[in-house]
């Protein structure tokens, strides 16, 4: 009886610590809520149902790309070609759908091709980084140029509309509920399943200590390669959302998203060194980036200061997250 009490007391004092340990994205979640409230204060319509649906519609692609990035960051790697994969998949599916006539069958075939292209890009990255053991940051920078080149080969200049059925579905409603909300639910289930697979755990243990993972008998090379493959697949999903929201092909559409995806991962509490983090955090991180951009405008920042204020705000969010995390782990 008494021993139970003694054991419970320090546990209660460490409630925050345990919460952050169990949910590393908690600081990010707090920042997200604060940002939502601030956005609502300065522009009530931005947090209305339509406003929030618009937010998700716009940033679902970045959320997916941040998830893609998370899986390689888990293992202590990085993918600087993620945005280029988005561009390549975007032009590939648009070209395929257009060539196949633009019907429902063409859309589905196009999506299938897109997943294959994403997977192939991921495997190429995996081979270069894990099998050939080149530095991830430089190797994926090189493949990003390669993938962009391929995208420009497939479609030299932006154009070619997406089949109407495709983008109307993405932007539309089913049973009066916006399609993107279904997508979010499916995504949540998918992430839950993935989090329970052996792969997620193995990626984390490789990131935590590659040597130890190798010595304990884990196939490190294969695991890192699988991480990149998964990254490619999620980048393809991100490209589907971009295509749904932009309804066209653009060989340069994803390029600038790469660093945003890395930023989202870090904002979400995942360690760039690997071995620690959550995909949920990355999803929240993507929303934080989006909401900061909107807030900077809604508070009325003069145009010449917007870039600066946005950068400072992201830095502050990063620092706040780290401070909360540190206090918790003390």
């Amino acid at each position: 009886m008494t021993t139970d009490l003694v054991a419970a007391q320090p546990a209660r004092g460490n409630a925050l610590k345990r919460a952050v340990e169990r949910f590393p994205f908690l600081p990010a979640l707090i920042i997200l809520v604060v940002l939502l409230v601030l956005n609502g204060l300065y522009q009530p319509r931005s947090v209305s149902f339509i406003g929030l649906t618009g937010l998700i519609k716009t940033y679902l692609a970045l959320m997916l790309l941040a998830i893609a990035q998370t899986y390689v960051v888990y293992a202590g790697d990085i993918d600087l070609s993620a945005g280029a994969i988005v561009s390549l998949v975007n032009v590939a599916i648009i070209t395929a759908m257009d060539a196949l006539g633009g019907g429902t069958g063409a859309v589905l075939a196009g999506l299938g091709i897109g997943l294959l292209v994403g997977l192939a890009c991921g495997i190429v990255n995996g081979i270069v980084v894990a099998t050939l053991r080149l530095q991830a940051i430089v190797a994926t920078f090189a493949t990003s140029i390669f993938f962009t080149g391929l995208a420009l080969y497939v479609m030299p200049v932006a154009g070619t509309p997406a089949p109407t059925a495709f983008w109307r579905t993405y932007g539309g409603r089913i049973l009066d509920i916006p399609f993107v909300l279904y997508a979010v639910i499916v995504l949540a289930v998918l992430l839950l399943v993935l989090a329970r697979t052996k792969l997620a755990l193995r990626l984390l243990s490789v990131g935590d200590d590659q040597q130890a993972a190798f010595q304990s008998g884990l196939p490190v090379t294969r695991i890192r390669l699988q991480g990149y493959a998964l990254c490619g697949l999620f980048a393809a999903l991100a490209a589907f959302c971009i295509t749904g929201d932009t309804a066209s092909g653009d060989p340069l559409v994803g390029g600038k998203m790469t660093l945003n995806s890395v930023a989202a991962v870090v904002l979400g509490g995942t360690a760039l060194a690997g071995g620690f983090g959550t995909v949920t955090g990355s999803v929240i991180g993507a929303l934080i980036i989006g909401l900061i951009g909107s807030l900077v405008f809604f508070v009325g920042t003069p145009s010449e200061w917007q870039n600066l204020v946005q950068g400072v705000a992201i830095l502050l969010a990063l620092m706040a997250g780290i401070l909360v995390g540190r206090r918790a782990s003390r």
Partner: protein
Amino acid sequence: MKKTFARALGAVAALALTAFAAQAEDYKIGLSNGWVGSEWRTQMIEEAQAAAAAWKDKGVNVEVVVQSANVDVPGQIAHVRNFISEGVDAIIINPNSPTAFDPVFAQAKEAGILVIATDAEVSSPDALYVGIDQKAYGAAGAEWLAKTLDGKGNIVAINGVAGHPANELRVAGYKEVLAKHPDIKLVNEVNANWDQAQGQQAMQNLLATYPDINGVLVQDGMAAGAWKSIMDAGKTDQIAATGEIRKDFIDLWTKDKLNSGATVNPPGVMASALNVAVLMLQGKELKEPATAGQYENAMYLDIPFIDSSNLAEAAKQLEGKPGYYSYTDQLSIADAEALFK
């Protein structure tokens, strides 16, 4: 009792009337710029803000709200969605992609918002383009070069970003002109991504490979760099090359008597678009509907050209301005009014 009621009614009516009048001449216009890498864009926004303020003399209050930051395509889609939330009357956008905004522009139009793209054309049928014809831009430079070289010689071209729509149009424009001059041989083309340093490097390589070239087609943003290489190689008086509209280049051009000609893509395009937008918001109709261009939604503005004949005038306009300031031109309110019924 009756009297008070009548008086109250009168007051309400008067209030309603003033409210209506105020609403009719109060416009909120959102400006979106998705890239802040050059002073040209800053000048573009400043000129648009000044143009909005100028409407005050006409009794029209134009409030501009600006979103200008380095964003990816989703980030700029968010700009548009933010403007919709803000309830603006019109959006003027310098778009990061020609095709990516179709769905969100449709959404803006549904919300009753006028959308005008400037500087780069957009494919959306729900938007209008007010700016220069990038194809004519490319053609004008080539026309000048062909004339300067008397229709014969070896030339090289330094292009911007491969796959960027403005670049592709400009290249198509000069190729069309060069096709009419078979004695001008385009010996090589390279991309220097609208970057001065890359333009300089590219020109250096080209001069080393083709020491006997007579002309260079280079777009603004890289031309000053290319010219630096030409001058370093001591070939200033042997080569004719297109130039820039920035004050520092125009000064150099004047001082060293360069054999140059510059097509003007004026930063005033956004101000021109704003003046057109206000007139449209007032319910006026264009004399000629905007149906030009590949997307059939464009209204092309005149493209000024600077060469030795009017260099002094251009220099005069830029006198006292900082070096990064660009030669500009815009549709004044009166110019714009002349385009409407």
